[in-house]
């Protein structure tokens, strides 16, 4: 069933963006609140998020979302007023409500109504809210007076109607009468004015106050029933009776009053004190009973802890400043950033070209003023380009927090489901990564964290039996290291047993017994990443790691990242993920093979070796060399890339570039090393598509195009063939 909202597409888009922010904030903060129950600022921020979401969804027209949010807001309101405290069941129901909110938000995204049933959750929410004590009996007292009050109001209304169209008399005391007399002496008129406000008026007391204020602008108020104090205490009724001194004509005043919103009826008559005196003893003294019209408010009666002015401002509250920072940002389409990035890439290429041309010019026109000038300008352009590049890269960077923030909730749920007691710590959320990389590492991280909870951490009894604390710990941390970001998932669970992996790999036909025996422990452990290693059935037996480790490594390699395992049987495991700072521009080692230039991302390069004659041996039917006592298999780039040159280059220098991926080391044979430089990665385009071993292309300073080597897929290719 399709949904329609009275809003334009860009309004809906904005709503969704903000709703997303609010929902994320709610999730993060609710989980945090469970641990920091007394954090008032946190509570305020949570309440505000729910409140704003309620208002926006109501305005958009999504009634169910407004309703659901209202239910949650209710609970939060009571909590911040001290009428309810955060318990696990209450937190559970709030988080459940949040999940439903996410579904409702999806409805807006797809404009399709889901068949989710909100009855239960709404019921649970109101039950949870009702579970609180109303702090002050005053509230109850006030509520209890409503029936009394309403009768009184009806009495007044009846009395007013029963009375003549003329305004009923008002009892004035001596001071008030004096006031009137003085005013008359000054030539002013005295009026008795009756104003009926609409019963349906939202915020009746405020309307009453505004009406009084309008009257004050047109004269002096001698007396009003209810009094202004009563009105300010939110004890107004829909009837306002005022004695006014004014030099304005009666009709003028009535006109002004009738213009006010929610004013249904205005009656004004000259105030005759003598009559009032007589009226004081009249039986039908229409004194409006003091009542509380608290119908609209839900225990929002003037309790001491009520919202006071200045709530939320003042002392620097960290969360508030953070939100303030967010509102001082500009929303930029990711596409725009990508375009900017491309343009910067072009500049980088030209900058290199410029430097080259200048070099050529300089050697031709040695110390020519013009050339000097050009040189200076070029240097400046170079500097500015570098700065621009850095700024744009920064604009594309997002703190990993945006990715990490959903994990606390996930870990809480997973631990509960698995029956494990786990302390989940996050560190370094402010560390920044290029946004496209963040997109890619989400799934791998979820896999790793899931596995930590499901398989690595032992159930409390088992841990105690092993002499460990019953509570396991999982730590997700991110930090900046030179040109990389290191993300680590560390836990104190079972650890990985290399023997079990060897056995499983052999059993599954991934490697032979012989090979298994020759692998050292670290290599055996790295087999985890081979596809087909674990099946759901054998999960805990093998290594405590489930399906998906090959996916983890794949995704990471897609963004030029790598993953390493450090583990100790019985003690725990750490997965160390290394990621480049940015995708589009990387530092590469330029090499030449048969006069063709290739760029090898430095992140993949371990070292370079200059070969001496005869160093290449044949080992196990493959070319290899021996480096520091270990065999390094070789790959000839010209073969990998089908150069089809005639004859093999026997003499002359040869170099080997040692590359590493996921623990396997290989040597790439090239003719020469040109140097290191930054290259802008350009894709091969949709027409050519993916080419194994090639990550893309780059335009060199001289305008020629060089291929960028994709080491991961190179190595994979070879393993398959081998």
């Amino acid at each position: 069933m399709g949904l329609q909202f009275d809003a334009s597409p860009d309004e809906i888009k904005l709503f969704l963006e903000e709703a997303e922010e609010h929902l994320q904030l709610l999730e993060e903060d609710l989980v945090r609140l469970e641990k920091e129950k007394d954090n008032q600022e946190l509570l305020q921020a949570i309440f505000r998020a729910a409140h704003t979401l309620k208002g926006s969804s109501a305005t958009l027209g999504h009634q169910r979302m407004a309703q659901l949010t209202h239910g949650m807001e209710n609970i939060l309101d009571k909590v911040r007023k001290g009428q309810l405290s955060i318990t696990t069941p209450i937190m559970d129901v709030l988080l459940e409500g949040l999940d439903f909110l996410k579904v409702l938000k999806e409805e807006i995204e797809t404009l399709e109504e889901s068949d989710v049933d909100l009855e239960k959750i709404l019921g649970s929410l109101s039950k949870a809210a009702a579970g609180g004590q109303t702090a002050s009996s005053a509230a109850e007292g006030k509520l209890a007076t409503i029936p009394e009050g309403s009768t009184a109001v009806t009495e007044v209304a009846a009395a007013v109607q029963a009375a003549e169209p003329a305004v009923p008399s008002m009892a004035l005391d001596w001071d008030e009468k004096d006031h009137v007399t003085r005013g008359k002496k000054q030539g002013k008129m005295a009026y008795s004015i009756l104003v009926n406000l609409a019963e349906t008026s939202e915020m009746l007391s405020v309307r009453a106050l505004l009406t009084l204020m309008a009257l004050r602008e047109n004269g002096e108020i001698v007396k009003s029933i209810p009094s202004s104090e009563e009105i300010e205490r939110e004890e107004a009724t829909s009837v306002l009776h005022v004695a006014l001194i004014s030099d304005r004509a009666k009709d003028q005043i009535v006109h002004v009053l009738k213009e006010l919103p929610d004013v249904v009826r205005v009656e004004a008559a000259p105030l005759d004190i003598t009559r009032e005196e007589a009226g004081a003893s009249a039986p039908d003294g229409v004194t409006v009973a003091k009542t509380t019209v608290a119908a609209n408010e839900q225990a929002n009666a003037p309790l001491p802890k009520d919202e006071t002015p200045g709530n939320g401002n003042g002392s620097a509250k960290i969360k508030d400043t953070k939100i303030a920072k967010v509102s001082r940002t500009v929303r930029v389409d990711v596409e725009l950033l990508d375009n900017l990035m491309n343009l910067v890439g072009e500049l980088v290429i030209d900058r290199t070209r410029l430097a080259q041309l200048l070099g050529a010019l300089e050697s031709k026109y040695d110390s020519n003023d013009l050339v000097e000038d050009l040189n200076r300008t070029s240097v400046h352009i170079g500097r500015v380009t570098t700065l621009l590049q850095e700024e744009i890269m920064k604009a594309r960077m997002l703190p990993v927090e945006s990715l990490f923030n959903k994990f606390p909730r996930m870990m809480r749920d997973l631990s509960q489901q698995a029956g494990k007691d786990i302390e989940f710590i996050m560190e370094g959320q402010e560390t920044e990564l290029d946004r496209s990389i963040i997109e890619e590492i989400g799934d791998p991280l979820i896999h790793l964290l899931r596995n930590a909870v499901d398989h690595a951490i032992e159930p409390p009894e088992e841990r105690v039996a092993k002499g460990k604390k019953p509570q396991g710990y999982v730590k997700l941390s991110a930090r900046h290291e030179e040109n990389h970001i290191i993300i680590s998932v560390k836990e104190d669970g079972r650890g990985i047993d290399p023997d079990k992996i060897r056995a499983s790999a052999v059993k599954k036909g991934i490697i032979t017994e012989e090979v298994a025996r020759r692998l050292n422990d670290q290599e055996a452990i790295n087999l985890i990443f081979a596809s087909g290693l674990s099946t759901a059935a054998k999960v805990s037996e093998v290594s405590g790691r489930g399906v998906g480790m090959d996916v983890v490594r794949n995704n990471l390699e897609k963004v030029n990242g790598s993953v390493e395992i450090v583990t100790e049987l019985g003690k725990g495991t750490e997965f160390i993920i290394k990621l480049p700072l940015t995708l589009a521009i990387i530092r590469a080692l330029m090499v030449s093979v048969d006069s063709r230039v290739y760029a090898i991302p430095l992140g993949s390069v371990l070292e370079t070796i200059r070969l001496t004659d005869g160093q290449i041996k044949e080992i196990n039917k493959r070319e290899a060399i021996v480096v520091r006592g270990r065999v390094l298999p070789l790959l000839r780039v010209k073969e990998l890339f089908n150069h089809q040159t005639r004859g093999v280059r026997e003499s002359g220098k040869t170099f080997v570039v040692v590359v590493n991926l996921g623990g396997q080391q290989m040597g790439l044979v090239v003719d020469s090393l040109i140097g290191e430089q930054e290259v802008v990665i350009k894709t091969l385009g949709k027409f050519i598509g993916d080419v194994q071993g090639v990550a893309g292309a780059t335009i060199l300073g001289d305008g020629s195009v060089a291929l960028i080597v994709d080491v991961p897929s190179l190595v994979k290719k070879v393993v398959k063939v081998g």
Partner: protein
Amino acid sequence: MTEQVARVEEKQFVVFQLSKETYGVDIAKVWEIITMQPITKVPHTAEFIEGILNLRGRVIPVIDLRKRFGLPQDEFTRSTRIVVIEISGNTLGMIVDGVSEVLRISSDIVEAPPPAISNVDADYLEGVAKLEDRLIILLNLDKVLNKQEKIELENVG
């Protein structure tokens, strides 16, 4: 011939030579025409994909139309040109023997290609324009760039 042609359309075509035959492509799809330049080979791609080149900072793929159509190979000469086309967001260069002109061709002289008109598979052809002195074979660029066939080609080849 049987249908009532609503109106006669005139389109402009870029006319080029390929293995002694004359071809035309819709000018709306032609981005520019450049002289032959160094092309970087890309491994593990179909035969007719010559490689990639640098077009003012953009990396674009280049195909050799002779190879694409299975025509006999020849050396590149000074007249060899690369016709850069753009279709549904894809930019691509096609190596041709030479580009001669831009012609206005009206639809009333275009006929469906008879099966044996060209060495090129009729699938790639949109039609044949019968001019006074010659025949211009109009190419259906979408088909020429169809990747699916490329994959099939790879398998067959």
